[in-house]
């Protein structure tokens, strides 16, 4: 029996699902239903959806291997690109709605304020990944180099959580939750990393 993840409707369905938070925010902004400080709300929501989608992207590999569910690879690029989409909305909200393109002030923020530096770093790490997400780029770079480049996703996730953690005033529960989630997703990979390293060293896996 074909798993539902192999069905033709699965990808469009996931696409709509990933788009839903953005549509919900847009509808809320239109109806004036985003609360008393809508710009703060949009900033917070787009930031959180970036982290959630990054976590979803990073969950694909462990799930494929541990749950023996290889079809999941079909969704990884879309999840990663949606993470980048929400990160872009987040950055746009800051540059446009919060700072109104005051580049001098934005520059000072990035240099002087560590939490914004971390956020900028996370976005910078995601940029080349989004740019090289196509089949053509995989071919051009070659699988191994492409994969090495895409390890930047770990930097993006770490910098993203630090960005969130340093931003909150005193209640760190939410950033701590994301930190834990990313730590778990990383820990689940360690066995594969170890195996790959042994394989790369030319030796055979231990009998």
């Amino acid at each position, binding site marked *: 029996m074909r798993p539902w993840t192999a069905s033709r409707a699965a990808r469009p369905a996931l696409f709509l699902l990933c788009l839903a938070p953005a549509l919900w925010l847009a509808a809320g902004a239109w109806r004036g239903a985003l609360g*008393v400080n809508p710009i703060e709300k949009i900033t917070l929501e787009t930031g959180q959806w970036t982290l959630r989608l990054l976590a979803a992207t990073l969950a694909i590999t462990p799930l494929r291997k541990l749950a023996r569910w290889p079809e999941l690879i079909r969704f990884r690029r879309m999840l990663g690109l949606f993470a980048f989409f929400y990160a872009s909305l987040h950055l746009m909200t800051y540059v446009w709605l919060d700072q*109104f393109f005051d580049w001098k002030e934005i520059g000072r923020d990035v240099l002087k*304020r560590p939490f914004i530096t971390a956020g900028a770093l996370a976005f910078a790490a995601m940029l080349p990944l989004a740019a090289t997400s196509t089949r053509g780029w995989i071919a051009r770079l070659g699988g191994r180099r492409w994969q090495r480049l895409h390890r930047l996703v770990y930097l993006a996730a770490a910098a993203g959580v630090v960005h969130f953690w340093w931003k909150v005033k005193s*209640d*760190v529960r939410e950033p701590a939750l994301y930190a834990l989630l990313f730590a778990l997703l990383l820990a689940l990979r360690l066995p594969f990393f170890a195996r790959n390293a042994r394989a790369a060293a030319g030796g055979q896996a231990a009998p």
Partner: protein
Amino acid sequence: MAQRPDFSLPYSMVTPRSVYLNRRRWLASLLAAPAAAAAAQRLDNVRKTGYGKSEALTPYEAVTTYNNFYEFGASKEDPARNARNFRTRPWTVRVDGEALKPRTFDLDEVLKLAPLEERIYRFRCVEGWSMVIPWIGFPLAEILKQVEPKSTARFVAFETFFDQRQMPQSAWSGIPFPYVEGLRMDEAMHPLAILSVGLYGEVLPNQNGAPLRLVVPWKYGFKSIKSIVRIRLVKNQPPTTWNLANPREYGFYSNVNPDVDHPRWSQKKERRIGEFFKRDTLLFNGYGNEVAALYAGMDLRRDY
């Protein structure tokens, strides 16, 4: 002869617009919370003053649903939700320390200490947003005079009510309780500093610091301590909660100052709640004419 259709009514029977709108607000508050509706009592005999008449008021809805009151949770919507059943009666305020006549005031006595006035003040939060709020209250100096401060009283220390059982969300807020704040004596005696018991003509909603809070309009909002149970006249500068939590980011004075950044964000501008474009933040929140003399000769960068 044509009969008038029976759905036609004389214009005199039309509900006045203000009543209609009030009814909607009343219904909304009933749906939102029975306790909140009961608490929305009008305050009588409030003297209007000239303060802030030219400012556009921030809507009641925003003033009462977007609050920092960490005892009831660290999100802006938490206090309105979690402070609904907060018990604000009976309530007493102890005023003591370096005073000749220390005493405990019952809230009913506090309400009769001085004529209640409406003061429309700008309110600037350290986080970068601001509101314009029609407070009701009286000068803080009035209650301090009652206990006859000694000449040794150089500072005033304030303390917020704290009860873990009524404020279970406080455990996650990440700051120590009870919340404490402080002013220098001359700041406390300044006529702009008030004790507030209401806003928008009504008794202070719980989430706004009922039944009695400080309002110091030229300082960042966190200085305006809520739900006060104790006021102490002291010799030395008292500890203050946010300064204890993060001394680099929150100073004792915390005067609104566009030239002194918070380490994590600029204080040059602010978002007035309800407005799209940010506006420039004013030194002493625009109350410089009245209060700048208090800080003559001080380095406001060092004493932030």
